[in-house]
């Protein structure tokens, strides 16, 4: 019973982790809470299933991967477009941070309502093309796909960490996050790097959406909203802007939430993330793996 809950909790936690990683990538560079991020996650799921079933008509693993590829490209480009069209103009005019924040809420609304308009309100089936089956460990049932979700979450975290800490564009991202003016003086094209950050963050969200669609075998227009709030809690818990923090925050929220539902009752299930977040903010405001920002003047 306990291990079963742990496995389920880790799977849900991986969902949150997958979404939070892209969210924290953007936050790490811009210190901007991107409320539209969970909408890209939902869009990624819709575009994958749409490409696979309606566009290609191939409900096979190959169809899934092609559909996912299409979804990643479109979602990534829309993320970049969001920055170029709505956030870059604010940066150019030195707009207040709150303006950018509200803009992301606006973009969220646009995407969510576009999905409602195009795909309708009722939930859509998301065929599981892999049918990987399950393994038994004692009396615990583990679906192979649960393992895959978990592994993908870790690989994406490692991949993005490599990008941020070991590549030239990653150095540019970190430089911008620490001092955007100084970054310009180094010859970094700040706007381009930020747009690329949105592109990558959104593309990763699309991967998460497609994985979750396959796991739950259906998607609906509320999937973004519910995961979005949880992923913001995960980010606060793990440390805003931290990639490993995103992963651990997601895992912890997923596990605690599942355990709480199993042993205490499912009524408060969705509130638990916020309770954890609240407690963490009181004890360690920078999150479990967050860094305290110190600057000498």
């Amino acid at each position, binding site marked *: 019973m306990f291990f079963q809950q742990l496995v389920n909790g880790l799977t849900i936690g991986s969902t949150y982790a997958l979404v939070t990683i892209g969210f924290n990538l953007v936050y790490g560079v811009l210190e901007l809470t991107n409320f539209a991020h969970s909408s890209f996650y939902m869009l990624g799921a819709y575009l994958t299933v749409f490409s696979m079933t309606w566009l290609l008509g191939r409900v096979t693993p190959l169809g899934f991967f092609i559909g996912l590829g299409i979804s990643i490209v479109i979602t990534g480009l829309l993320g970049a477009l969001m920055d170029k069209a709505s956030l870059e103009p604010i940066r150019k005019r030195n707009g207040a941070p709150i303006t950018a924040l509200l803009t992301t809420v606006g973009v969220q609304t646009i995407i969510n309502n576009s999905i409602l308009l195009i795909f309708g309100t009722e939930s859509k089936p998301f065929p599981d093309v892999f049918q990987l089956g399950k393994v038994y460990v004692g009396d615990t049932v583990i679906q192979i796909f649960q393992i895959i979700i978990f592994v993908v979450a870790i690989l994406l975290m490692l991949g993005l960490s490599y990008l941020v800490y070991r590549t030239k564009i990653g150095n540019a991202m970190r430089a911008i996050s620490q001092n955007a*003016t100084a970054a*310009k*003086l180094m010859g970094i*094209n700040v706007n381009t790097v930020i747009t690329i950050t949105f592109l990558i963050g959104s593309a990763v969200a699309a991967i998460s959406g497609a994985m979750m669609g396959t796991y739950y075998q259906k998607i609906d227009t509320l999937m973004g909203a519910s995961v979005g709030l949880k992923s913001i809690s995960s980010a606060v818990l793990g440390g805003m802007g931290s990639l490993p923090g995103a992963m651990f925050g997601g895992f912890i929220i997923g596990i605690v939430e599942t355990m709480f539902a199993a042993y205490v009752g499912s009524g408060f299930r969705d509130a638990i993330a916020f309770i954890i977040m609240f407690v963490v903010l009181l004890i360690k405001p920078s999150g479990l793996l967050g860094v305290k920002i110190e600057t*000498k003047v």
Partner: protein
Amino acid sequence: MALLEVKNLHVSYGSINALRGINFEVNEGEIVTLIGANGAGKSTTMNTIMGLLRPKMGEILYQGEDISHEDSSTIVKHGITLAPEGRLIFPRMTVLENLQMGAYTVSKEVMKENMEESFKLFPVLKERLSQIAGTLSGGEQQMLAVARALMSKSKLLMLDEPSLGLAPLLIREIFDLIKRINQIGTTILLVEQNARMALNISDRGYVLETGIIRLSGKGSDLAKDPKVVAAYLGNLD
């Protein structure tokens, strides 16, 4: 042809006109100093050349080409760098990473070469490569900012108050260093509060007063000019 030529440059912050039509030039190989009281527009001038601010009117010619509407990243690639007022190091990166960022536009080989040269100029930094830059002392941060600006081996190096916050002994060292950097072949545009020292190492100087250039001349002449002495150098010693 001058390396840098600023023509009738006007810059404003909203309704505040910080620069009201200034003209000056910097020739290849020179050290040129801008002096002026607080708020005269010295930093504004440098930031505008660097593309951080947009002029309202006027031209900035670099090697004969107008760069006044180019992006900072392009201007760096042309070979101009600025060590800005207030250092602006990357506080959560190590000293080494800060220096590497300074070499963002050059190849790895050039970076290694430049890094060796920086260590010769600033041996202190070599001992502290893995220290987080935000934990360096103020003076060390200032050295890092100058060293970082040298990493791209620019043709024109602009230094906005490089001696700010340094101990008197170090200030002398910084000026020696500026001379040495200049002798290696870098053209320098300098802004300094220590006007006398700055003018003494400069080929030429300009005196900026609330957005207008009032005086210009050879560095050594300006240092003796009674108006300059009275307003900026004081009568001590």
